[in-house]
């Protein structure tokens, strides 16, 4: 096959090799097709409207090896240190894209809440994936998505039986570790929630020791009628690492999908979150927070498709950019013809702390119905002088006052999250990331 660009050709060559599921005809075929799609599409360029502000050249000019399962180990204490305090969760740990059974804890997950690693399912129970794998995430979504389908080694398969509530959250910890040469991991997460099923899933991406790897993740979620899923996606790749991730959701009637997307790490990070509100009563919340400094580049693209009447979406993204950091936010809301009586609210608020930081923010509303309520707004600004004066007039020094206001800005996003342990951990985490964070601590 001939590839659209040399990089893609090289990556396809390097990632090739045996994988679980190869002996299953339809899986092998899906992978082959995806590899062809990847070759044809190539990696996205800034000539594509959706990638206009994000050049993936830093990824293209590096050579990533396939991550070796035998090297997919990490010290147990390093993994333990990544635990979210007070969070009692089923925990699956992946190192450079491979499941690390010894570091994981699936106790309590049973037949009603099945949590399995994908490689195991590929090898032993491929039939269970028949209408799941690639059902929701189109491999031609981008060259990256195609690469994931073609070369994913592992990931998670979460099945929630009808009328079942997963009592404990499910944490998927993806750790990127430093190797002799940078590696690429293509984790795949598939979640299916039956009628009125409920679960909280946390995808947690962490880079250790300045790993320079690429994480190329794809998540597919299908929600049956009345199902509810709260989905945290916490991206803390190393400052030298790369992260490309896309989430694809299909929602049946009266289902609710809540996305909390936090992006703190990576030198270049791109996240796409897409949901289809495919039946009446479906609703979604897209909540996001991104913090970037130095020369970080963080891009979020979201798409909410109101395909049917009486659907509802609420989207609020906030970002704090310092140094030479660059942020991109593109929020597309599509309202199909006849999708009357829908509600869609969107906001994107940004603080730029330095003259060199930059944000490109764009709401994109495409509305083909006439009886709808839609609103959107984007702000870009500095800290409110009046609020700063208020705190100083109470005796708070200026640096601490600034730190408090930054924290308060981020807190508005954290406040929408419902898991107390995670919220508290994130608050502490955000404080550490902020300038003068240590002084903020005594106020919260």
């Amino acid at each position, binding site marked *: 096959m001939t590839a659209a660009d040399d990089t893609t050709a090289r990556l396809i060559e390097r990632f090739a090799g045996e994988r679980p599921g190869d002996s299953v005809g339809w899986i092998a075929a899906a992978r082959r097709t995806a590899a062809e799609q990847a070759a044809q599409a190539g990696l996205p360029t800034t000539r594509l409207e959706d990638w206009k502000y994000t050049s993936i050249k830093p990824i293209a000019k590096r050579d990533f090896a396939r991550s070796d399962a035998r090297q997919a180990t990490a010290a147990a204490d390093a993994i333990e240190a990544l635990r979210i305090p007070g969070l009692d969760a089923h925990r699956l740990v992946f190192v450079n894209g491979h499941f690390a059974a010894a570091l994981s804890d699936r106790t309590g997950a049973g037949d009603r809440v099945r949590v399995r690693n994908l490689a195991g399912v590929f090898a032993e129970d491929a039939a269970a994936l028949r209408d799941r794998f690639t059902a929701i995430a189109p491999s031609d979504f981008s060259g990256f998505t195609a690469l994931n389908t073609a070369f994913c080694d592992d990931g998670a398969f979460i099945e929630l039986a009808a009328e079942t509530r997963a009592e404990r959250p499910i944490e998927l910890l993806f750790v990127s570790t430093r190797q002799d040469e940078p590696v690429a991991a293509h984790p795949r997460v598939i979640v299916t929630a039956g009628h009125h099923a409920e679960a909280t899933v946390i995808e947690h991406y962490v880079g250790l020791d300045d790993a320079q790897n690429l994480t190329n993740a794809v998540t597919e979620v299908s929600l049956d009628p009345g199902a509810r899923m709260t989905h945290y996606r916490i991206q803390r790749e190393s400052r030298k690492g790369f992260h490309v991730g896309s989430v694809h959701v299909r929602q049946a009637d009266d289902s609710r999908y809540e996305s909390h997307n936090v992006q703190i790490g990576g030198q270049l990070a791109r996240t796409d979150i897409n949901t289809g509100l495919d039946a009446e009563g479906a609703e979604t919340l897209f909540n996001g927070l991104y913090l970037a400094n130095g020369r970080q580049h963080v891009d979020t693209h979201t798409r909410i498709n109101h395909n049917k009447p009486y659907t509802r979406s609420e989207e609020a993204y906030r970002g704090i950019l310092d140094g030479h950091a660059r942020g991109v936010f593109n929020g597309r809301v599509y309202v199909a013809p006849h999708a009357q009586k829908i509600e869609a609210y969107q906001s994107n608020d940004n603080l730029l702390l330095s003259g060199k930081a930059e944000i490109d923010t764009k709401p994109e509303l495409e509305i083909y119905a006439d009886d709808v309520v839609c609103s959107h707004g984007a702000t870009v600004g500095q800290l409110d002088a009046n609020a700063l*004066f208020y705190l100083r*007039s*109470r005796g708070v020094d200026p640096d601490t006052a600034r730190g408090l206001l930054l924290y308060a800005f981020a807190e508005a996003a954290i406040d929408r999250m419902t898991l107390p342990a995670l919220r508290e951990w994130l608050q502490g985490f955000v404080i550490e990331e902020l300038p003068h964070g240590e002084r903020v601590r005594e106020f919260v």
Partner: protein
Amino acid sequence: MSEAMLKIENLHARVEDAEILRGLDLEVNAGEVHAIMGPNGSGKSTLAHILAGRGEYEVTDGSVTYKGQDLLTLEPEERAHAGVFLAFQYPVEIPGVNNVYLLKAALNAKRKAQGLEEVDAVDFLSDVKQKMKLMGMDDSFLNRSVNQGFSGGEKKRNEVFQMMVLEPELCIMDETDSGLDIDALKVVARGVNEMRGPDRAIVLVTHYQRLLDHIQPDHVHVLAGGRVLKSGDKSLALELEEKGYDWVRQEEASTA
């Protein structure tokens, strides 16, 4: 009285190109309550903010002496440490920052500046609870973020509550009465009256006379065109209420 707590002489100030204060004089002694009244745009809120150290205003002439020192050279937080407090007309919401922790940090910053040890946590909490009760705030306020989700009246009560906890020597209240119903106004007035004392001065900036039914001022000043046009006792406030601010403006015109 040897020296006034606050002495303002010939104060001129501008914001951007607009001159707002044009030669304002005022003396406030410890133990006194002063009401500063005036029509919109007379400069009364500007005066309150300049005293607290707001940066957007440029003082072009004149002086402000507070307890013998040049107030205008101090940063806002230094003024707070020195005992100056401004109750805001529009208090700011700060999500995630605990109301009581802010007060504790503010109090400790002030104590540190005065060479005192940090406040004892137990003493602080019991003091806070007692003052909350006086201001009609229930215990849930202990866990709430600064002004977040507060109604207009709750915000104003919170300002007075903060003032009571921080125990400033010079309390400046910028239109604390605006937007309050009569019950809330009474609570606010109760708090302010509680604060009256021989070592403390209170400056009430207000547009309306009704606050002064509940807080009896020792002196009333009428501001217009950036200057004190008329000073008197509380009967001046009643006269103003009766005759309206046009009366002041006419007097101003005839003396100009």
